């Protein structure tokens, strides 16, 4: 099956450049999301906070049509290889979304077989292109019953190459 279009949306956006208080706060939230490190006040995991916020604002989100109880959620693999027990934030966000009634189940069917450079820490010309991402994952598990809808879940998107 060939996919011709891919609809996507993001809950939040931030800029990595600049030194204003707002940019600093946005960067702190981004770093907390990347480590799923408990936020200060109120103390809540970023993955849980994201799921609750998506649920709260669902009616007004332009991509609300993705967020039903029907799709299976597939976490996007990290750009690096991962050992067992390693923190995998997209998987944690996907599980929190399902726990909040968004998506049918989480199917962690993709992993990274060959590491690619991290987009966020690469200079623009060195960022891996979508084709590189496409060539480097491995399928861990086949989905027994083909779902009508699949929703890919990622944490921080730089240029979106990993998703595309």
């Amino acid at each position, binding site marked *: 099956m060939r996919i011709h279009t891919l609809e996507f949306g993001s809950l939040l956006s931030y800029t*990595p450049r600049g030194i204003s208080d707002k940019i600093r706060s946005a960067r702190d939230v981004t770093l907390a999301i990347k*480590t799923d490190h*408990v936020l200060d006040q109120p103390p809540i995991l970023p993955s849980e906070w994201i799921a609750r916020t998506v649920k709260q604002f669902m009616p007004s989100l332009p991509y609300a049509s993705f967020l039903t109880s029907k799709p299976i959620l597939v976490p996007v693999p990290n750009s690096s290889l991962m050992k067992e027990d390693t923190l995998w934030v997209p998987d944690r966000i996907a599980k929190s979304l399902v726990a909040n009634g968004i998506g049918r189940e989480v199917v962690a069917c993709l992993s990274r077989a060959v590491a690619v450079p991290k987009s966020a820490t690469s200079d623009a010309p060195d960022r891996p292109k979508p084709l590189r991402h496409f060539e480097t994952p491995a399928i861990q598990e086949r989905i027994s019953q083909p779902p009508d809808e699949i929703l890919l879940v990622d944490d921080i998107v730089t240029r979106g190459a990993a998703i595309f």
Partner: protein
Amino acid sequence: MMGISAKPRISVLTPEELLGPLNDVEKKYAPLKLFASGPMEIPVPRPRLAIIGSRKASGKSLDVAGEIAKTLVKKRVVIVSGLAEGIDTAAHRAAIESGGRTIAVLGTPLDRVYPQKNIELQQQIMRDHLAISQFPIGYPIEPGNFVVRNRTMALTANASVIVEAGETSGSLHQGWEALRLGRPLFIWTSIVNNRSLKWPGEMIRHGALELKDPEEILQVLPSSEKILIKIAR
């Protein structure tokens, strides 16, 4: 192994009291209790960077460790290390000499010192900064303690830098634990490009980053400000 002369004043804390709330991945290897001595506020301030590496480091690597510590201290980063000979000592000393703050994560109980030559440095850290240990007074001192301590050091720091390390260095345990926690791990550039070493390439494939300039670390460290958010009920 020597003891320190004065009996240290020790607080008993949980890791969450010392560092703030932890997620389940962070809790997995966190010690049940930590023993702390020093005037630093609890929970400890952030950002915190661990600078670690070989006990028998080259002069150049000792300079690099000192330079990283000095650069980061200017941005109010707390320098974390293990009070070992070599890179650890260079990092603690540079942080102190630059007017910064430092945390020593010990592989011994707080009333013992290893290496003995660092007795004054440990006393200074306990007097003016913070020393922590997961080993109670009287706990036997064994090589395995230092491996366990390295995991605790990875947990204590928001990011870690390995300045120099051989294939069997204890610093590698900390590196792998930082990667498991999803925390940034940097490897100094000369080590990354040392073709006789296999571990840097393996860690980079698992998410470690080559460090060419200490300023790059600032991009991945949180600020000292609290994150306040609104939450849906």
